[in-house]
């Protein structure tokens, strides 16, 4: 029980530690941050890697919006209205792109269920046949195998 409490407390602390910078980044974004989250619409690379004319124009736009006090979400929303959702490096969590978020979560959840079910099954079969695991060690050796084993061990005694 103590371990569970420790885990919850650690998770809450981590959540607080991560939430503070995320909130600051949302309210006061930098060009560098947005360059990681926005794509160049012509060359389909991250903005930070692109030297296309439109990429330079997007950088100028982002700087102007930061100076105007826009949040990160507002800047991204403006860019999406101009260039479409393909301008975002991460797929939006709606429509067809929702699959990109949902499939890994379903995969993780499904894997957890399957592993849990298998573990449960193994545990139950273990309970049903006690001593089964030790059966092989209790079984008498085949006489031929016993003789061979004795011969092999005798070689080490010489």
């Amino acid at each position, binding site marked *: 029980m103590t371990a569970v409490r420790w885990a919850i407390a650690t998770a809450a602390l981590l959540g607080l530690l991560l939430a503070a910078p995320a909130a600051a980044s949302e309210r006061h974004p930098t060009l560098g941050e947005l360059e990681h989250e926005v794509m160049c619409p012509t060359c389909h690379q991250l903005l930070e890697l692109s030297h296309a004319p*439109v990429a330079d*124009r997007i950088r100028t*736009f982002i700087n102007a919006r930061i100076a105007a006090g826009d949040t990160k979400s507002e800047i991204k929303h403006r860019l999406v209205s*101009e*260039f*479409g959702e*393909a301008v975002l490096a991460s797929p939006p969590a709606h429509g067809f792109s929702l*699959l990109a978020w949902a*499939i890994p979560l379903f995969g993780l959840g499904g894997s957890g269920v399957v592993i849990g079910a298998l573990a449960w099954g193994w545990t139950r079969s273990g309970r*049903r046949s006690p001593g089964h695991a030790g059966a092989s060690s209790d079984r008498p050796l085949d006489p031929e195998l016993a003789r061979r084993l004795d011969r092999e061990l005798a070689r080490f005694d010489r």
Partner: protein
Amino acid sequence: MSVGQGDDGHRPGRPWRRGSAHLLLQGLALGAVVLLLVLLGMRLASNGSGRGLDEALAAGRTAAAPDFSLPRLNGEGSLRLRSLRGKILVLNFWASWCTSCKQEARLLETVAKAYRADGVVVVGIDAQDFRSDARRFIDRYGLTYPIVHDSGDSTLSRYDVTGFPETWFVDRAGHVVGEHVKGPLTRAQLTRNVERAIR
């Protein structure tokens, strides 16, 4: 061992249940893969592809110009391509940051005015661009022909546009005709394709 139990001490129905559980899991996995493939196919179909247009032109076949409805930049509301059926269309894909687009802008305006009486309409499709920049471009070059803004890439993919500028020609029946010009238009290319569409 009591009657009705297997060698491992389990009930005889258990292997069957385990087998059916495996079958169910396999079915679910297969179903998920099929669903993803169907969704991918739907996505690709909705985006379409213009490769058919280039292939049709190369083979001398006719192909319908993909329809679109996009907001106008130098006018109110939207422009639907189908509403221009019966006209000869010059579909010019451009962006304000494209240097070659600046070179051909005045030529397009001149041709749009010169052939207006013959039912020729130049339609500019601005894409991968800020609307404010596009409007400044329109004002700077005094463009009066209808210009629309594509905020996604759907029109580009359907017309197989891979760069700017690119131009397609459409006849009165709504079929792509002539050349798919990739790069800045020359006066000779423009008039040759327009004249061919008029005939």
